[in-house]
């Protein structure tokens, strides 16, 4: 477990990076900081399909950056068995769709062992997986399944929307003593953003107000954050000032920040890429109406995909994928301007 020298913070020239590079920076920095951090998954030692783990094996060796067979259930279980003995594995599930094969280990073992052991065991495990509808990759390489994870006590669930958050949230997730499911949207991988110098940690459970506004609150996750900001720009021409909040972490949820905004605007839109029924937006809606019913001036509007598998054809994919137009329409509806 030798410790190669590496930078602990990105150089100034590297501060404008893509989200996938920010992920890579977080992994490098955490592996340099803590020899207990391991990375395992399919093809991770050669960088993975998108380069998120590029260069890690060269820096830290194939003992700590471990290629696995295509055995998702046992990869996840291996990580749990490592975590209970004090390592901090970061598992890459190449597409979140494949996590279906690992749900037993994630749900029945990773999430529950702390509780079932009466606190004797801890499972400091991060599961990285990417989701996202793009390019006609179809039903097994595009889904958004985060609502499943939110429903499991013991799991934390994080969805970064910017490179700075991807780096800072991943570092915080790795340092967390609980299993964290970290869902990256592939459509955001190549978008550039500034990452701060230094540690740049972003604590789990803190939402970010991406744009202030007094007329309506848009609560968004992942790719829909950028779509909501675009919609907000479009709506300024209609005299609507939308406040856009990036939830960043679904569990734990920063309900205080959400409610502070709702009390100010009285109108709410929730927006995610996942299908609507049973989605995280439903839970968010329930929590907001319960805590701020007296402040609401209109029913809460929800934006999400139609209740269908992700289709492959470009025309169907476009019809499936919610974006700025759907968010703008939902905002108008929340303001009674249908």
């Amino acid at each position, binding site marked *: 477990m030798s410790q190669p020298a590496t930078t602990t913070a990105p150089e100034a020239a590297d501060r404008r990076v893509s989200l996938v590079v920010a992920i890579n920076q977080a992994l490098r920095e955490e592996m340099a900081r803590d020899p207990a951090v391991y990375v395992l998954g399919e093809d991770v030692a050669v960088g993975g399909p998108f380069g998120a783990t590029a260069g890690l094996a060269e820096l830290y060796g194939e003992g700590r950056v471990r290629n696995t067979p295509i055995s998702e259930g046992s990869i996840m279980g291996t990580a749990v068995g*490592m975590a209970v003995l004090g390592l901090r594995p970061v598992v890459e599930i190449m597409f979140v769709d494949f996590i279906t094969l690992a749900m037993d280990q994630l749900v029945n073992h990773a999430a529950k062992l702390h509780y079932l052991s009466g606190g004797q065991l801890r499972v400091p495990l991060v599961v990285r997986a990417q989701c996202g509808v793009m390019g006609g990759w179809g039903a097994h390489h595009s889904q958004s399944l985060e609502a499943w994870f939110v429903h499991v006590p013991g799991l934390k669930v994080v969805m970064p929307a910017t490179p700075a958050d991807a780096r800072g949230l991943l570092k915080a997730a790795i340092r967390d003593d609980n299993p964290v499911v970290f869902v990256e949207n592939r459509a955001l991988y190549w978008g550039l953003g500034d990452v701060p110098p230094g540690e740049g940690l972003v604590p789990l459970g803190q939402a970010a107000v991406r744009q202030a506004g007094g007329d309506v609150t848009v609560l968004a996750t992942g790719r829909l954050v950028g779509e909501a900001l675009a919609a907000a720009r479009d709506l300024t021409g209609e005299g609507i000032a939308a406040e856009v909040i990036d939830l960043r972490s679904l569990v734990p949820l920063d309900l205080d920040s959400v409610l502070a905004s709702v009390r100010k605007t009285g109108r709410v839109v929730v927006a995610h890429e996942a299908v609507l029924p049973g989605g995280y937006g439903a839970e968010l809606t329930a929590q907001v109406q319960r805590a701020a019913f007296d402040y609401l001036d209109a029913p809460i509007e929800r934006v999400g995909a139609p209740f269908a598998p992700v289709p492959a054809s470009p025309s169907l994919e476009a019809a499936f994928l919610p974006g700025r137009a759907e968010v703008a329409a939902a905002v108008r509806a929340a303001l009674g301007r249908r």
Partner: protein
Amino acid sequence: MDTGEARRLLGTMWTIRAFEERLAELVANKQLPGLVHLSIGQEATATGACAALRADDYVYTGHRPDGPFIARGADLNRMMAELAGRTTGYCHGKAGSMHLVDVEHGLLSATGIVGGNLPLGLGSALVCQERGAGQVVAVFFGDGASNAGYFHESLNLASLWRLPLIFVCENNGYAEFTPLSAHTVIERLAVHAEKYGIPTTTLDGQDVLAVRAAVQEAVDHARGGGGPTFLECLTYRLSGHYVGDPQRYREAAELAEWQERDPIARFRRHLAGVGLLGPAAPSAGGEAAPGSHAGADGARDGVDEAALEREARERVEAAVRFALDSPWPSPDEVATEVYA
């Protein structure tokens, strides 16, 4: 084997037997809650295997955890209290039978998911390998687990990474209610492991000394960096699949045949044969051994089985009293320890 070792092995088997016989009564009488799976008849496998492990090794069990837990030295009071759902239990009443954990004795987890413990064993064995301190992991599972995807994934990974992992397959001939012949076309489960390049042994799981010797060899192999071993221990559960199982799926003749191979009676006969058995007649666990030693020498130097059985039943009774006298967890604790 000296008298002390013989006493430890027989005493452990009697403790498991006494614990589970009492447990069955308590569950049947509804004095204890839960879905409880016993391993009566399989005591030699757990006892022999754990006798070959070091205190700093790790163990994962399936849904029949009592044998390995007791054989590793888990506290009977805290075990019984956990099964009784009391706050003094190992897991504060949150685990019950199928999720027992005792970190102090390296008992990292039982599981209610058949085969689900195999990949956990991989991960912990990987940690042992990385530490380089010669620790090993033993995972207990049954023949039913051999049809789970995890089983094949784990054999492959353990062999690929040469992990210090002992696969302890307790082949008791049944996956729940379904006999081996109806759940797989593979007669010897060790065949699976051979195909993945893992050393295997199929052995008499009713013979505590054979199990101990096989596990010792596997452990030595693993500590030396040789990687995993697969041990197929042929055994039988004399109890039902769970407490309350009407057991309509098996013939009385089959049960009677395996009662003849009761591991406690078998070890008793062996001890008598090598002159290590004391004079006292046992009250249970099969017929008295032929040619048992009698007389003062035997009483002083041999294994006094009746005393071991008596002591086991007394310890179990004390555990039952401790458990039933212990407080229930407060309702306030229902959602504590969800997050670390």
